[in-house]
């Protein structure tokens, strides 16, 4: 399969960026670390690691309820992180930004607190074969519980959503659209704004899984016309434990809470409970406030570099890798063959070698890639493969690392004699 693409130029000072990431100086079995598993999780710059340690070392205290300076300082840092996230996705109000553990908990929050009260027998949920399990299984289970139907829109041969099918499904009527902004398996970017408009016209509420979007491209919840949007901090330089649900205040206010307990209440008596205001109504118990503060520091870092520039940098790497990888005999690349509407995810297989064997051999070369179903089993079934090997980029990756990857492909072929 020959692929030629016009690679845009990157304007990032990658050497300087790499110096901020202590882990990138590590070696694996004596070889330099080539970390190409960013769609699974990103590495963290020292600015984030230090922002977290600083809380513990300088003013740690539980937030919101303490009438003393340390608690006030920690609360301020936590709420400041919320403001940064709100600005990042252009949320109309910070009240709409809820901290959760990860994108998965975010989808579940919407499914439990909005879905159980708003979906009923016979209602239709429209989703796609590109969804990560985290944006599929919660809806599948909710549908089974309430008796709703699920329509799963297919992709074309290049891994792009079948827009015709999507429109047709929405025209049949839908109560909910659950759509991934960006596919973690193939790197496809969906035309969310257009589809959301059609979904709204059909009367559907729109939930966007932006776990692979917010880290890599500018995302504007108002421009997309989403109703809910979820993402995970750990894929965007922040620690695991820092996830976000953004939701329209008008919807969040009408919803029942999800988790019950401390901090999300305003008043509790034996007989009844009043809820706290947004966003705290959805944050029960002690928040992962240090993780959230880490996310705030990550947003600062991404802003300073420039998210649009990061996107261009990743496309430059895809533009570099795609033709080189595709020309190797026996290699099949899945997903978009051009740079339009895609991010820095490259999924492929080598004929005659199982992806797990590929990843094991790569590991010996210091190259970290993912091999498996990528929490995308319906997509794997659709592609007719048990698994793929996936390389995914971020701001610190280089063309030299792409070369290391192609060298590793040759090494694997040699071992297996294919």
């Amino acid at each position, binding site marked *: 399969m020959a692929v030629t693409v016009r690679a845009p130029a990157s304007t990032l000072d990658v050497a300087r960026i790499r110096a901020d990431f202590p882990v990138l100086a590590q070696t694996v079995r004596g070889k330099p670390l080539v970390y190409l598993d960013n769609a699974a999780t990103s590495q963290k710059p020292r600015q984030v690691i230090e922002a977290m340690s600083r809380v513990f070392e300088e003013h740690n205290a539980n937030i919101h*309820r*303490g*009438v*003393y*300076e340390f*608690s*006030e300082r920690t*609360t*301020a840092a936590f709420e400041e992180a919320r403001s940064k996230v709100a600005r990042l996705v252009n949320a109309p109000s910070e009240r709409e930004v809820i901290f959760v553990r990860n994108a998965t908990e975010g989808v579940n929050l919407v499914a439990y607190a909005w879905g159980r009260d708003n979906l009923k027998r016979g209602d239709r949920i429209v989703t796609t074969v590109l969804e990560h399990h985290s944006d599929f299984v919660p809806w599948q289970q909710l549908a089974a519980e309430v008796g709703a139907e699920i329509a799963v829109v297919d992709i074309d041969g290049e891994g792009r959503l079948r827009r015709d099918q999507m429109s047709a499904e929405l025209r049949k009527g839908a109560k909910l659209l659950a759509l991934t902004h960006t596919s973690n398996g193939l790197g496809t970017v969906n035309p969310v704004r257009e589809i959301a408009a059609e979904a709204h016209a059909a009367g559907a509420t729109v939930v966007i899984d932006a776990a692979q979007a917010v880290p890599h491209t500018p995302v504007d919840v108002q421009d997309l016309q989403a109703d809910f949007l979820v993402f995970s901090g750990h894929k965007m330089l922040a620690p695991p434990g820092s996830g976000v649900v953004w939701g329209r205040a008008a919807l969040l*206010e009408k919803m029942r809470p999800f988790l019950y307990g401390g901090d999300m209440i*305003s*008043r509790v008596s034996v007989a*009844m*409970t*009043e*809820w706290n*205001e947004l966003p705290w109504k959805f944050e029960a118990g002690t928040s992962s406030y240090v993780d959230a503060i880490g996310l705030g520091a990550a947003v600062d870092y991404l802003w300073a570099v420039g998210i649009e520039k990061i996107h261009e940098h990743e496309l430059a790497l895809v533009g570099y890798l795609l033709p080189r990888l595709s020309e190797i005999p026996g290699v099949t690349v899945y997903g978009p063959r051009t740079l339009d509407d895609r991010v820095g995810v490259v999924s492929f297989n080598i004929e005659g070698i199982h992806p797990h064997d590929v990843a094991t051999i790569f590991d010996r070369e210091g190259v970290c890639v993912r091999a498996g179903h990528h929490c995308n089993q319906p997509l794997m079934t659709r592609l007719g493969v048990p698994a793929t090997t996936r390389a995914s980029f971020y701001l610190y990756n280089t063309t030299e690392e792409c070369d290391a990857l192609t060298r590793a492909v040759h090494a694997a072929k040699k071992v297996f004699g294919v």
Partner: protein
Amino acid sequence: MYRDYILDHYKNPRNSGELPGATHTYHDSNPLCGDELTMQLRISDGHVDDVRFSGKGCAISQASASILTEEVKGKSLDEVKRIDREHVLANLGIPISPARIKCALLGLKALKGAAWGLTAWPGEEVKAK
């Protein structure tokens, strides 16, 4: 934070108690502290003829409410509606730490609720059970 001025208003609240013939009444509370506060206004000709507050709670919330009642007597309803947070905080004449802002502003919230004739603060309707 606890200047004599504040402690005096806390211990000897002005305009405290029930207001006979009140035309506007609003109750608010801060469940976190257990502060409770009711503001009552008697409006005639669009002006505050008389004002009273009653409640219990911390020195900051009670003193702030007491100071506020002294100020609004005789003011027009429009003037009362225009009083803002910054003004109330400045009135207290002391730096208020973030955790205590709600205490300091409870009196203002109740006053506004009364002046606007609210029955519940927007967005804070009881969403129970």
